């Protein structure tokens, strides 16, 4: 997609403001790059390394590893895929826990308590949160899937 690197930067900035932890996960993976077997490199990536190694009196072997940068489309796809997985896991996690409590007399509100101190960290009413989490991902899933398809994923 034309301008995909710029679009990625724009959307990453927005994600950083709204859900920073997920933005960091995406950003760190992009900074790490894709590690691939040197023999599996394609096009100019392979040719460039072949020439440099030949100059050094060697050649690419099957043990060689290389790191290549994510393309603009790949970065954008990674961000969108991460949103899909986040939305799905938020919905399915809440549903699974509520399902375990279903049919018992146990309250559907769970408490998260600091293990060492016993301090209450959060109280979550799953019966209230499940519909919102499911609606959020289902509302946006079709467009995100279409966007991934547009990027060849």
């Amino acid at each position, binding site marked *: 997609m034309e301008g995909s690197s710029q679009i990625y930067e724009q959307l990453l900035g927005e994600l950083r403001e709204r859900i920073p932890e997920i933005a960091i996960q995406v950003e760190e993976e992009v900074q790490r790059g894709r590690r691939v077997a040197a023999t599996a490199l394609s096009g100019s990536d392979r040719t460039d390394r072949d020439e440099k190694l030949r100059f050094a009196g060697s050649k690419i072997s099957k043990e060689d590893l290389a790191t290549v940068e994510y393309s603009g489309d790949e970065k954008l796809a990674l961000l969108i895929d991460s949103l899909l*997985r986040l939305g799905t896991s938020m919905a399915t996690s809440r549903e699974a*826990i509520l399902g375990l409590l279903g049919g018992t007399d146990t309250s559907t509100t769970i408490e998260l308590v600091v293990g060492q101190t016993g301090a209450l960290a959060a109280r979550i009413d799953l019966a209230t949160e499940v519909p919102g989490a499911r609606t959020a991902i289902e509302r946006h899933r079709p467009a995100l899937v279409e966007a991934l398809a547009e990027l060849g994923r």
Partner: protein
Amino acid sequence: MTSAELIAAVEAAIGGLDGVYRTAADESDLYEAALLTVAVDAARRAGGVEMLTNDGATPAATVRFRRGPGHLWNGGFTFARVEFPQTPKRLEIHLGIMVAGASSVAHECDVALIDAMECERSRAGAVHPRRRAVVAALEAKHYAGPPGLDIGRGFLGFSGEIGPGKCALVFPGQTSASLATLIARKSPECFPEVEPGSPAAQRLRGHIDQQIRNWLA
């Protein structure tokens, strides 16, 4: 889809998901609790009957899960107690408890399936359960993107302490080629793309089911 439409769609999704997203710690805790449900389901398939309890004797009225590591013997936290009608063996499934590893250092297990006799010993003596009584242990990482290699290296260290064949690294994101290669052909297992109900969660459930059956045999 034009680039403008793509931007609008992703911006709308970020806003919509942000409306549900609590905090990183809350979402991580919810993911660990969801993995407990996968472990309970595996125990059922292995023939078990579970009870969610805070005291080991009565059903929990309110579920209280740990945030961060805690001691098994500190009461009041919810765990699953599983009985197997065909044997006297019993299993407990805990979240966020410390387990004594091979180096005599205690390590946090995000989800731990432990022989109930060892859990009773732990409560009686206020000592951490020993690794030999661990049936299975899950290291949960709530990563929507691919976790880095540092996560894999940490997991291999953890599994060396608890027992490689018992441990699994679990996360909802895709794996990276590096992480998959690092853990491939080793005893501890890696389960990417695990969300309750997903094909990967079914594979994880089957893996835990088999570990329970091996322990029961």
